[in-house]
């Protein structure tokens, strides 16, 4: 279902992907080959969309994720869709990131210098990785407002560093500007009521 912003939400249950993409009945995300198999399956689902994919990656059923799998399923997945030759445009929001998954994910994001948005069960979003001070501030403001139109940007972000940070967040795919539009959206705004 494509929204008016040209974004197509797609929910991906990683537990289901794990069970269907790996030969055996593994229930934990451990070992790099397992992570790679799951990532490729996710990439295939995301690539099947016809417009910008708003990929809701649900990790609720995952109990154990080692660092190798976090690198494959989170870091390499994000990196694939940041590349110039990415198969489609995609945004990612990770759900169900419980305490035990937080550390491996944060570790690989920091190591690969990536940012990612997670959404808790209360609907609140968090920026993971290691953003700069400006990026963190700008992301938090955008998150609070939901959207900022281009004309408001100078008023909301009077400093040039903040405005640069806003553009950087778009490039790093943790904020969104629709094609032909100059409205900055937080990913949580795009997720909206998506179940």
């Amino acid at each position: 279902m494509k929204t008016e912003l040209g974004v197509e939400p797609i929910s991906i249950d990683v537990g289901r992907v794990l069970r269907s993409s790996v030969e055996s009945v593994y229930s934990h995300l451990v070992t790099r080959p397992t992570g790679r198999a799951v990532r490729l399956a996710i990439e295939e689902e995301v690539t099947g969309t016809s417009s910008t994919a708003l990929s809701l990656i649900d990790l609720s059923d995952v109990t154990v994720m080692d660092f190798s799998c976090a690198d494959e399923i989170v870091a390499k997945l994000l990196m694939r869709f940041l590349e110039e030759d990415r198969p489609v445009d995609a945004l990612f929001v990770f759900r169900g990131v419980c305490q035990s998954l937080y550390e491996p994910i944060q570790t690989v994001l920091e190591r690969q210098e990536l940012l990612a948005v997670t959404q808790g069960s209360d609907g609140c979003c968090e920026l993971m990785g290691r953003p700069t001070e400006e990026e963190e501030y700008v992301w938090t403001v955008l998150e609070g407002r939901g959207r900022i139109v281009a004309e408001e940007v100078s008023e909301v972000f009077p400093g040039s560093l903040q405005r640069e940070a806003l553009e950087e967040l778009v490039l790093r795919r943790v904020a969104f500007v629709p094609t032909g539009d100059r409205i900055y959206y937080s990913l949580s705004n795009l997720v909206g009521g998506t179940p």
Partner: protein
Amino acid sequence: MRVIDLPVSLDFQTLDALFAEVVEARGEKILFDGRHLRWVGPNGMAGLLAAGTVGRDKSGEAPILELGAAGDVKSYLGRMGFFQAAQGIFAAGTPFPRCSPGESDVLLEITSITTNSDIHDVVERVQKRAGAILSNTLGYLQTSVVQFSVILSEVCQNILEHAEAPGWVAAQSYNWSKRLGRHVVIISVVDIGRGFRGSLSDEHSARFADRWGDVTALEAAFIHGLTRFPDSGRGQGIQQIRKQVRRWGGLISIRSGTARIADVPEWFDAPPLEEGLSDFPGAQINIVLPERLDDED
């Protein structure tokens, strides 16, 4: 035939002498005389399998393992699955007892690691069994079983990705009342692959020039997180294991080639780096996790 006496206690430190003798055997058939063996931990068991395999491969004949009549060690080895793992490696001096592994007090029996499936099996088993031991015996948080499983997964992957040879993992809890006044969990991972120096040589030896050796290879992997893979996502396993072991106040050491490197907690007396040891083909990772004390955060 070369007779090698096993010590009374076989652990990660007494293994050094055992391996020195295996190297000295130079292809002679070996008889491992374990009649005086009274205690053997996960490192001892995995190390003994490694020593036996090296002895077998060098001599072309399965070495003989003779254990004493005392039932405790045999019974324990049986519960830990040692005799099953020893099939094809050792010939029994006196027949090995028929024991079935997997008794309730075993955290993780000796498990051969040759495929990714083996690692999944290890994690499945540990997720079911380790929770009670980690929280009740060691006083760790209920959620620590996940971090424990992640440690096991990462150390076992070290075998598959770097050693390219057989390896074993085992874990068990012990009451170190005399030695430490606390319970501990010991994890051992041993392989007889090409070792850290062998794994890293192609990619990293040039920059170290004539300083390249077992010590520099261990430092490169253990301290700096270097790996033979160019992928920047690699090499974090050992770093993250060290971090978690430090949080739990534990000991981690890696023995490879002629060196051993370690993060040594204050309760253990050992140097952080040892060199000039007898050559150990492959790698031996030893992790000791101590019971949490009430006054610790």
